[in-house]
């Protein structure tokens, strides 16, 4: 059984083999340690010259990545925990994306910043956040998030091969999750993939949906569980739309389902306000809804270390279920 982690690692090996311009920089990425979450395992053994272990200087190594990209390399910078991307905001917003677009000509900047985001492991307030929010809507920056649905190693490869700066988000809970990407049917749902480089996937029971669940990344398995439960216990049929390119994103797949369901729940692991879901709802507001769309997200507090409290703060299957029910029960003001 291949897991998301294996796929990422294999994809990484493949792209480094095929593309001599791929260079990896990060903290503690050398073998035998192979990186805090082991995504980079084996790379330093196979490509010792192109895998550079770094000091604990998140801003510094992102800048180095930008410089390497200007030198026509395809650098991949690992930020050990997504929480520490707070330290690279200046590099990405005022340097990387600016170089890409402010000089009156497109300056290719194939930089990938990879980072694990997310909670549910008891790591506490500074090692559990989903901060990709900070990078959504940054002009010139692509944010791509892994799910078990689209081969993660292939997704990573495509990000690495793109010509602009990208943030590649890996939700920690997914690392050990089995891949679904080869399957055409998942938990009784049919999968439709868009033709894009970073596909949108629509999972559907083949029946007219009552509600469209929209999500990405680590909330994918949770939304699927919610869909199953809603079907069994509430006789509510959901489509689940999973995006991979989350900023900027295409509304097509969401819109197509919404036209049928006219009800939407957007689920994400990050905090509620100005989260991913805010833009999804704002963008889809041109559509006719039978009930206000509902967002499911983390409570707006630091994520507690104790698992008991962490569970209370983070969005759970039950929250997605409740939100879907709400869209069916409620009405516009």
């Amino acid at each position, binding site marked *: 059984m291949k897991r998301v982690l294996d796929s990422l690692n294999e994809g990484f090996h493949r792209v480094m083999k095929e593309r001599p311009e791929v260079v990896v920089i990060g903290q503690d990425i050398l073998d035998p340690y192979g990186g805090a979450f082991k995504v980079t395992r084996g790379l330093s053994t196979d490509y010792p010259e192109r895998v550079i272990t770094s000091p604990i200087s998140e801003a510094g190594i992102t800048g180095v990545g930008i410089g390497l990209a200007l030198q026509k390399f395809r650098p991949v910078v690992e930020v050990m925990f997504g929480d520490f991307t707070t330290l690279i905001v200046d590099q990405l917003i005022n340097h990387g994306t600016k170089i890409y677009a402010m000089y009156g000509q497109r300056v290719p900047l194939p930089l990938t910043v990879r980072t694990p985001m997310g909670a549910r*492991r008891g790591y506490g307030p500074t090692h559990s956040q989903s901060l990709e929010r900070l990078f959504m809507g940054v002009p010139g920056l692509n944010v791509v998030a892994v799910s078990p649905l689209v081969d993660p190693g292939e997704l990573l490869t495509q990000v690495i091969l793109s010509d602009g700066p990208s943030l590649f988000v890996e939700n920690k809970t997914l690392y050990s999750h089995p891949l679904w990407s080869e399957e055409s049917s998942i938990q009784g749902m049919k999968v439709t993939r868009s033709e894009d480089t970073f596909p949108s996937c629509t999972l559907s029971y083949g029946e007219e949906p009552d509600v469209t669940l929209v999500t990405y990344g680590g909330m994918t398995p949770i939304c699927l569980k919610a869909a199953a439960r809603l079907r069994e216990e509430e006789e509510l049929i959901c489509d689940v739309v999973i995006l991979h390119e989350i900023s900027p994103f295409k509304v097509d797949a969401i819109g197509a389902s919404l036209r049928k369901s006219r009800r939407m729940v957007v689920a994400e692991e990050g905090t509620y306000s100005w989260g991913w879901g805010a833009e999804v709802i704002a963008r889809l507001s041109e559509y006719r809804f039978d009930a206000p769309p509902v967002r499911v997200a983390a409570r707006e507090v630091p994520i507690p270390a104790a698992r008991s409290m962490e569970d209370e703060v983070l969005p759970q299957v039950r929250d997605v279920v409740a939100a879907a029910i709400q869209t069916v029960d409620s009405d516009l003001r």
Partner: protein
Amino acid sequence: MLSQIETDFRDMLLIRRTEELILQLFTEGKVSGTTHTCIGQEANAIALISQLDPAIDFVMSNHRCHGHYLSFGCSLEGLLGEIMGRANGICGGRGGSQHLKSGNFFSNGVLGGGAAIACGLALGEKLKKQNGIAVWCLSDGALGEGVVYESLNMAALWNLPILFFVENNLYAQSTPIALGVAGSVVDRAKPFGIHADEIDTTDVEQLRPWCSEMIEYVRTNRKPAWAVVDTYRLAAHSKGDDNRPEEELARHREHDPLYLLRRRVSDACIENAEKWVEDVLAKAAEAAENSPASTMDGELS
């Protein structure tokens, strides 16, 4: 009354046993998340932090904070409860192993940023014309973060009573210092005009007077200092990840600060200390066990 060495032995033993218990709780799956022990580095914590005055001084610590916390006189029960996610945790279970606050003690698992905050605490002492000092705890790895140098510059410019307490344990997670730190650790503060000194020992009896001098330098001169202790962590970075060569570990085990003292104190002292620590720890563990799981109630929810 215990002599200084006897007290130090007992207090270091408490830190050691506490962290061993914490590791065991993780192994048994009773706790989740992560933790970083200071096993092997207890002498630093005791020698420096226990000489501070919790009523007027401030400590800003990092991910490897248990020893600092206990040496500052903070509650053992509160620590165990915190790590076990109980309501009696010092932060009600919210912070966990890396995020502790008790009085003037703070820790945060994000490296670097605390340096500037400690400068602010020190600036507060200066503006209030008070006698306290601020201590910021770091190890070699945190030298990679730029804000450390912003802080050195401000500390020097503004004559802040801050002690940068560098526990150089030669590794940052899996990264040996040679791959993470260019040049000299002790020299890093010098171009800012900051008094810097280094001591290479795990012996609390050597550390204590040296730390006392460094503290006094800051307290008296109302100026920053950079105090580098060369040490070694004998346990893994966090729970079990350790790729260091066994020979290297063995070599350093001979400088285990507890082992050093065991050869100097009496058997009775050792026995009493073991007994006392066992009792204290058992009580604290029991209190934590009996405390309910923490919940999101109250004003912070």
